C-alpha cells in the first residue's frame, strides 16, 4: 500500500465498509428457507435416475448452462494456447531434479488418476463429476510432468492429437445436445432410459456427458499447465 494517496485509501475503506453494511443489512438473511429446492428434491430421482441431485440439475435440468460453462473453459484453453504459443519458449526439463520428488510423483500419479476416473464415472451416484474428475486427473499429470519433465509427458501426449480430441469431444457434446431435434423433441432432452437407481447405468445420459466433459477437461487442464510451464514466466 506504499505510494498510495491516503485520501483515496480512506475513501475506499469507507466505501467498502458501507457496501458490506448495506449488503448484510439489506440481505434479510434469516437462516435456511424450509422447503428450499423442493421443486427439484421431490422429483429429481424419478425424472433423471441419478442419485446425486446436484448432478441431475447440473447435467440434465440445467444442461444448457453447463454447455456454456464448457464453452468458456474451451475458450480459455484456446486463448492460453493462442497467446503463449511460439513466444519465449524454453525447453523445460524437470523443475526440481530430486529423487524424492520423482519417486513420490511416480507413487502418487496412479492413485490420483484413478481417483479422477472414479469421480468421472460415479459422478451421478456420489459427489464428483466430469469437471472435478478431469481436473484432478490433469493435476496428476502435472505431478508426472514435474517428475519426468514436461517434454517427456508432452511427447507421450502428442499435441496435435490432443487438440483434435479436445475439439472432437466438444463437437460430440454439442451434437448430443442438438440430436433430440432430429427425433422431434426439444433440444437437450435426455433420450436414454433412467435405469435402476444406484447402478452405474442409471441416470440416463448423465454418465455420457460426465465422461465427455471429463476427457475434455483432462486434456484442457494439461494443455493449460503445459503451456504455462513451457512459457518462460518472468514475473
Amino acid at each position: 500500500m506504499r505510494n498510495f494517496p491516503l485520501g483515496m485509501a480512506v475513501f475506499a475503506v469507507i466505501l467498502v465498509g458501507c457496501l458490506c453494511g448495506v449488503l448484510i443489512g439489506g440481505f434479510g438473511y434469516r437462516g435456511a428457507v424450509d422447503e428450499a429446492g423442493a421443486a427439484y428434491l421431490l422429483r429429481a430421482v424419478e425424472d433423471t435416475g441419478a442419485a446425486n441431485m446436484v448432478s441431475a440439475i447440473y447435467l440434465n435440468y440445467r444442461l444448457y448452462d453447463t454447455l456454456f460453462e464448457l464453452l468458456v473453459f474451451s475458450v480459455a484453453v484456446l486463448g492460453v494456447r493462442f497467446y503463449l504459443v511460439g513466444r519465449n519458449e524454453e525447453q523445460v526439463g524437470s523443475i526440481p531434479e530430486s529423487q524424492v520428488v520423482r519417486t513420490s510423483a511416480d507413487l502418487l500419479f496412479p492413485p490420483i488418476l484413478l481417483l479422477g476416473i472414479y469421480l468421472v464415472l460415479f459422478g451421478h451416484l456420489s459427489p464428483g463429476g466430469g469437471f472435478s474428475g478431469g481436473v484432478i486427473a490433469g493435476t496428476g499429470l502435472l505431478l508426472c510432468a514435474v517428475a519426468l519433465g514436461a517434454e517427456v509427458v508432452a511427447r507421450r501426449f502428442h499435441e496435435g492429437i490432443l487438440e483434435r480430441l479436445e475439439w472432437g469431444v466438444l463437437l460430440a457434446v454439442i451434437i448430443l445436445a442438438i440430436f433430440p431435434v432430429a427425433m422431434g423433441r426439444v433440444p437437450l432432452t435426455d433420450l436414454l432410459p433412467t435405469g435402476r437407481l444406484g447402478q452405474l447405468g442409471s441416470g440416463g445420459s448423465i454418465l455420457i456427458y460426465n465422461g465427455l466433459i471429463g476427457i475434455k477437461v483432462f486434456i484442457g487442464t494439461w494443455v493449460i499447465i503445459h503451456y504455462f510451464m513451457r512459457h518462460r514466466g518472468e514475473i
Partner: protein
Amino acid sequence: MSVALLPLGHFLFAALSLAWERGTRRLLLLSLFFDASLLGYLFCSFLQGETFAVVLGGWERGIGIELADDRYSLVFCFLAIFLTGAVIAYLWREHLRPYFYMLFHLLLGSVFALLFAQDLFNIYVIMELLTLVSFLLVGYERKPVQIWASLKYLFFASLGMVMYLFGVGILYYHTGTLNLGILKAQLIGQQDAPWLLIVSSLLATGIAVKAGIFVFSLWLPAAHASASPAVSALLSGLVIKMGVVVLFRLAPIFPLSLPLEVLSAITGLLGIIYAVYTYDLKRMLAFHTLSQIGYLILGIGIGTELAIAGGLEYALGHGLFKGLLFLSAGTAVQVTGKEDIPGLIARRSQIPTAARAGLLIGTLGIIGLPPFAGFCGKTLLSHGTDSIVAQTIPVILSIGTVLSFAKLLPLFHPVRGPSSPWSKIGSYAILALPMVFFLPLTRLFIPIEQWNESFGVIPGVESILIVGLGLLLYRFLPARPVKLPQRVFRLEEAVLVILSGFFLVYLLLLVG
C-alpha cells in the same frame, strides 16, 4: 424449439471451424445462410402471431431453462446478422486464423442465446462467455495497449458479474426461482421490500458494467479504441447492446425506472463532454458509444411502450451506424497512419472515397438527420413521454453529438481519394442501406396510428434545427484543447467509481 437452434448451431459451427481449418470462411458463410433462413422462418411465424417459448430438456417452466422471445429479440438477431455480414466483408481479404473465426461464431452464438434467455443464471453464464470472447477479440493483435485494455476489461466485467451473481443469490433466497416470467408474477406485491432494492441495484450495477454506461463502463474507451476496427465495430455495435437488452428484460420486473433515467442523463452528458474534447478519432467514437447509450436506457427507464420502442430502435440504428463509423474510421486510420482528427484531415486525400462516404453517412445517422436511423429512434423517444425533463435530455444529447461530430466536417470536403476494393464497399453498403431506409422499417414495431402521429414535418424540422444549433455552438467552442481528468479510467479509481455508482443506484431506489 427452433429458437434454441440459433445458439446451438453456432456453437456447432465454432467447433467445426477448428476441426476444418481451411474451410473456415465457407463455414462462416454457411452459418450466416443458416441463421438467415432460420430467422426468416421464425419471423414469418412471428408475423402470424406465434411465440417461441420453449423450455429446454422438455421440462416445465421453473424447472428447466426457458428460452422465449419478445418483440425485439428477432430484430436484434437481424442486427447481429447485418453486422456480422459487414465485418466478414470487411475482413474478406485478410488472412485470419481459425481461432478468430471460432471466436466469431461463439460471439454470435452467445448473442443469440442472450436475446432469448429468460433465466437469470443463464444470463450470467452467457454474459461470462461474451466477456471472455470479447476479451480475446480485443487482444487479438497482441499489442501491449490492447492487452492492457482487455485486461482491465476483464477485471471490471468480472467484478460486475460478481455483483450480478450476488443479486441473483439474494433473489433466489427470497423467491426460490430464477425464471424471469415466474419472478415477475411473484414480485408484484413486494415492490418496496428492502431486499428487492439491494437486488435491483446489484443486478443493475452488474449489467451496467457490461452495457456501456459511463460511471460503470470505464473500461470501454480504451478497449474499443485500441481494438482492431472490425472488432470495435462488433463490440460497439452488438456486444454493448446485449447489456441494454438485459436491462430491458429486467426493467419491468424490478423498480429500475428512476435510476435508469438518471444514469441516462449522466452517461449521456459525461460521454458527450469527453467526446467533444477528444481528438483521437476512434477514442472519440468510443466515447460516443457511452453517450448514445443514454438514449437507449432513457427509453427503457421511461417505460412507456413508445419510449421503449424508441430506445430499442435507437439501439438498432446505433448498432448500424456505429459499426459503419468504426469500420470506415478503421480504414482511414490504417491508410493514413494517423489517429488524431487533425492529422486525418491533413491527409484526407489519401483516404479512400468509400471510407469517407461511410464516415459521412454514419455521421448523418448519429446526429439524427431526418430519413436516417438515428432520427426515428429519437423522435419516438421524445413522443413516448410527457415529462419535460425526459424530453430535454435527448435534445441536449443531440446538440452535444452534433457539436462533437462537427470536428469531422473538414474531412468530408469533396476531394477524390483512391478507390477501395469491392469487399470494403460492400461492407459499408450492408450497414448503410438499412440505415438509410430505416424509417419504413419502424412500422414493424409500432401500430400504424402511432407511426403517423410520431413522424411528421415537425420532428424533421426540429432535428434540422438541432443540427443547426449544434453547428452554431461549434463556432463558439474554444479552440484550445481542454484536458479532462483521465485518472478515472485507471484500474483502481474505476473500481471505486463503480462502487459509488452502485450506491447512487441504491439511493435513487430508496428515494423513488
